[in-house]
């Protein structure tokens, strides 16, 4: 279980003194330089990967091996570079949000509006799957409706920046936006549906016996900009540091599939024609848990070989968004029927997304 992705390592101390202009200039200078260097390396990757494959290693163009190698040398560093940049940026954004703050914003909001808000907050609030339980309890005991809490719990793990970066880097912004958009929709609707089902009595009773109260200073994060930058850098260290082997492994597998699996091989199994491929994909995905990093490059290769977009999207969402480990953890606070309902409702939502895209595109 990939736990605690996104919370970052230690926060820097809060409330540092105002930064003098020389330090600010220094930070700005280093930042611009780093950005410039990043951009240069990024732009040169296609040329570099071709040079590496054909000139340095001397593989023949058009062969399967060269195809695979070029793919890997291009996509591997490209994705890692993107990850570093985006995780940093998202880390800085995250420094503005805490669960306490999310709770305060959501407490007492009615359905619909609450569901929408919760789904969006889930994306920007740092979330760790081991904190799912305390967070859940904190939310429900302070006036956040059950359905709204679930919207948050669905969107937080599913729509994470690692997934979005990888989707953007490997498929382009349209697919990344699609994933984010439909993920939000699934989170909002499934949370709303669960709210309507009125399953409050399926929450374990002891949960309501211990209402969470705000930790001192938990809500107000008076961090200076320097602190926020450090938080961003810590996030990179933490997340990219943990995830990069999976990314490279996934891209390696993707490279092999890209080079060696014949075109349209997947069309038979995962193509739009096979109606049962969507439920199958969702069904396989639910008990699987992988971090986004490992699975997306494989997905890319599958898509490239003829699998239908809807099926692939559905598979990805159910792997990342519904995780068996998380549901086992939630068993401590939710009765089985509620957990099953939760998995069922979200699963159906993902199914619909899958079919919709197979039909539309």
């Amino acid at each position, binding site marked *: 279980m990939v736990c605690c992705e996104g919370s970052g390592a230690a926060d820097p101390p809060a409330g540092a003194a105002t930064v003098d202009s020389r330090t600010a200039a220094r930070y700005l200078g280093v930042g611009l330089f780093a950005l410039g260097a990043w951009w240069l390396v990024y732009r040169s990757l296609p040329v570099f990967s071709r040079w590496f494959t054909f000139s340095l290693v001397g593989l023949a163009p058009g062969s399967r091996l060269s195809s695979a190698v070029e793919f890997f040398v291009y996509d591997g560093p490209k994705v890692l570079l993107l990850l570093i940049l985006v995780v940093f940026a998202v880390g800085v954004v995250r420094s503005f949000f805490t669960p306490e703050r999310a709770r305060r914003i959501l407490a007492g909001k009615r359905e619909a509006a609450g569901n929408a808000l919760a789904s969006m907050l889930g994306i920007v609030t740092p979330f760790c799957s081991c904190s799912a339980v305390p*967070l859940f309890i904190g939310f429900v005991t302070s006036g956040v409706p059950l359905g709204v809490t679930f919207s948050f719990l669905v969107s937080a793990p599913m729509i994470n920046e690692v997934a979005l970066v990888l989707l953007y880097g490997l498929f382009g912004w349209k697919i990344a936006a699609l994933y984010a958009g439909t993920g939000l929709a699934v989170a909002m609707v499934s949370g709303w549906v669960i709210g309507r089902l009125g399953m409050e009595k399926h929450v374990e009773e002891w949960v309501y016996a211990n209402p969470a109260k705000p930790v001192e200073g938990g809500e107000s994060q008076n961090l200076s900009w320097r602190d926020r930058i450090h938080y961003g850098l810590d996030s990179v260290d933490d997340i990219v540091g943990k995830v990069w082997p999976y990314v490279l492994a996934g891209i390696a597998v993707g490279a092999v599939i890209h080079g060696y699996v014949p075109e349209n091989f997947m069309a038979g199994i995962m193509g739009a024609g096979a109606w049962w491929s969507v439920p199958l994909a969702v069904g396989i995905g639910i008990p699987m848990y992988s971090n986004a990093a490992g699975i997306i490059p494989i997905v890319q290769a599958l898509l490239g070989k003829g699998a239908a977009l809807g099926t692939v999207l559905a598979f990805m969402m159910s792997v990342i968004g519904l995780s068996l480990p998380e549901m086992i953890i939630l068993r401590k606070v939710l009765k089985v029927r509620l957990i099953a309902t939760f998995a069922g409702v979200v699963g159906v939502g993902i199914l619909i997304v899958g079919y919709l895209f197979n039909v539309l595109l």
Partner: protein
Amino acid sequence: MNIAILGTGCPKCKRTTDVVRKAVEEMGVEATIQKIEDIREIMKYRVMMTPAVAIDGQVKISGKVPTVDEVKSLLATGIRV
């Protein structure tokens, strides 16, 4: 003083325990360190994010792995009080 580390057993919670032990050792402070992993016990402290560290029943850090220095300065304040 009594230090409680609240966490359900994920790697971050283990790291927190190591950090706390190290800080206590380096400060030479008399403290009992207990790891609380049962979620119901943890919820008695009313935290929203684990890992969390409570000193003498008061939650001082929650939601992240603290640095050794952060724990040390908390211990120092504890002694003076």
